[in-house]
């Protein structure tokens, strides 16, 4: 028996189940929101905005941020070094664009004869390089980029074999696949910042720990995505290769690899992009590069230096975004 179309019921958009899910979701957000003080966040933020508009007298957030921001500028561009600490310093042959300055500092000292405290003015000649600190930041930034590059290269070198062993259509044995997938899961489960903490202990401060931390997480990420891409590759060429008597490696080389190369490049570029940002962050725990410099300056209350570093990071990340977008557009 058929019913005329006028009497059909169109599927409802808001069914009973949909409403129940909505209520449950709101409940979860309400409870968790209280626990992470979302209410206070809103109050403080509104207060800060009001203070800017002159509608509130003072705001804790705006004051704190404003004070810090005020100290970031002017950003530090030059550096100065005491000439007595420069080995083989020759005042007649100064480095390019640099000049000498005399700096007077007041020092309180105990006079050994009178046993009184007295103020002494100490004079020191310093070598000032107008863009010296900028150069230092540039070198540290370059180190960060190098850490990111090597982190990506090693990630791909570990991720590719893991992906091959972890892909259902290429793995030599299902047990190997399970093992490879477990390793991938483990690598992905440890964030860079945490593995960097431990690697700094193992390898010491500096870029090695950074490269390894980035490589381990990246290998897990790339292994997972490489494997999934290879599993979902068009099976028709693969069957053709099997019919020709090809083994798994040849099947991969001639029937899978050509299909997945564009995605492989895209994932690897994404990891490179991500690694540049993460290399900055893991520097904070001593894994080399600009992050380590940032942490050092911040802890020494040298906010002008911090300002320079922040500007440098901002510029590099923006350039990178732009470059990666263009690269993807061109090739993929």
């Amino acid at each position: 028996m058929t019913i005329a179309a006028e009497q059909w019921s169109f599927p409802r958009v808001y069914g009973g189940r949909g409403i129940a899910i909505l209520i449950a979701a709101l409940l979860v957000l309400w409870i968790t929101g209280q626990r992470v003080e979302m209410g206070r966040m809103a109050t403080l933020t509104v207060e800060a905005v009001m203070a800017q508009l002159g509608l509130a007298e003072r705001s804790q957030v705006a004051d704190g941020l404003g004070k810090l921001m005020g100290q970031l500028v002017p950003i530090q561009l030059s550096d100065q070094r005491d000439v007595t600490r420069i080995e083989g310093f020759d005042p007649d042959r100064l480095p390019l664009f640099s000049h000498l300055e005399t700096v007077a500092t007041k020092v309180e000292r105990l006079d050994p004869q009178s046993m009184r405290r007295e103020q002494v003015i100490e004079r020191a000649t310093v070598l000032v390089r107008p863009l010296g600190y900028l150069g230092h930041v540039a070198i540290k930034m370059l180190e960060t980029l190098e850490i990111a590059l090597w982190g990506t290269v090693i990630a791909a070198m570990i991720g590719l074999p893991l992906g091959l062993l972890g892909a259902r259509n290429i793995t030599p044995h299902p047990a190997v696949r399970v093992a490879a997938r477990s390793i991938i899961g483990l690598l992905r489960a440890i964030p860079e910042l945490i593995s960097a903490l431990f690697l700094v202990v193992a390898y010491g401060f500096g870029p090695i720990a950074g490269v390894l931390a980035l490589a381990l997480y990246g290998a897990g990420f790339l292994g997972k995505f490489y494997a999934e891409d290879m599993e979902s590759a068009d099976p028709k060429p693969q069957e053709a290769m099997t019919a020709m008597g090809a083994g798994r490696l040849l099947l991969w080389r001639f029937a899978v690899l050509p299909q997945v190369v564009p995605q492989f490049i895209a994932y690897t570029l994404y990891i490179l992009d991500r690694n540049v940002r993460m290399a900055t962050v893991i520097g904070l725990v001593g894994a080399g590069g600009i992050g380590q410099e940032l942490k050092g300056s911040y802890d020494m209350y040298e906010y002008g230096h911090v300002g320079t570093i922040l500007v440098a990071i901002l510029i590099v990340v923006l350039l990178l975004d732009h470059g990666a977008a263009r690269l993807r557009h061109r090739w993929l």
Partner: protein
Amino acid sequence: MSAPADVRLDGVTVSFDSFRALDSVTLEIPAGQICVILGPSGAGKSTLLRTVNGLVFPDRGSVAIGGTTVDRRSLPGLRARIGMIHQHFGLAQRASVATNMIAAAAPAMPLWRALLGFYPAVDRRRACALIEAVGLQEEHLARRVDRLSGGQQQRVGIARAFMRDPALILADEPVASLDPRSAGEILDLLRDQARMRGATVVCSLHQLDLARSFADRIIAMRDGRILFDSPPDRLDAWQIAQVYGRGAPEQVMLEAAE
């Protein structure tokens, strides 16, 4: 040129879950014959072809090629002498024609050569000669497969099937995704190459008219069984109607009546 091989199926039964794709099929295809298997979708044509080169193993019965029984042990040696042509060409779409051609020779060369791209000169020369033989040009070698038309892709498919001097060619609906004119051209090409290079051909087809002009022998299947087996000129309308059943496309009926 190799000596063509004969194919022998003896009581081959293949089931997928409860569906019986082949029901004790016994068949002998003499060396050098061009044999077309005709039948509606789901008749068991593809399964029959796939049992011959071990992509599917029969539940019961056996398959022998040139006197060698197909099993896991003999398969690597046998596959080296079987070329297969697929409905959807089976080519890696994003790879070049040259890479797809070399892929057929790869199992026979040292692994490092295949993986690193140091292909033996003899294989490179053979790929060029075959691409010329199927009517393509040098410029097509470097072109990506997905830049070729369907007819051109199947030409590459045929050229590739002959890369290792096969004694047997299995063609699984080689022209089903082509327009009628290229379909005729492709089948002519396949037959000429098979005759010239000495290979038995087992080919599944949908179109009766093409089968008639192409085959030495036509085997019609339905529901996993062989309905009849005859030279192409002995087919009549009644037999065709049996193959395609009551739901026979009118076109087939008309063609058969001509």
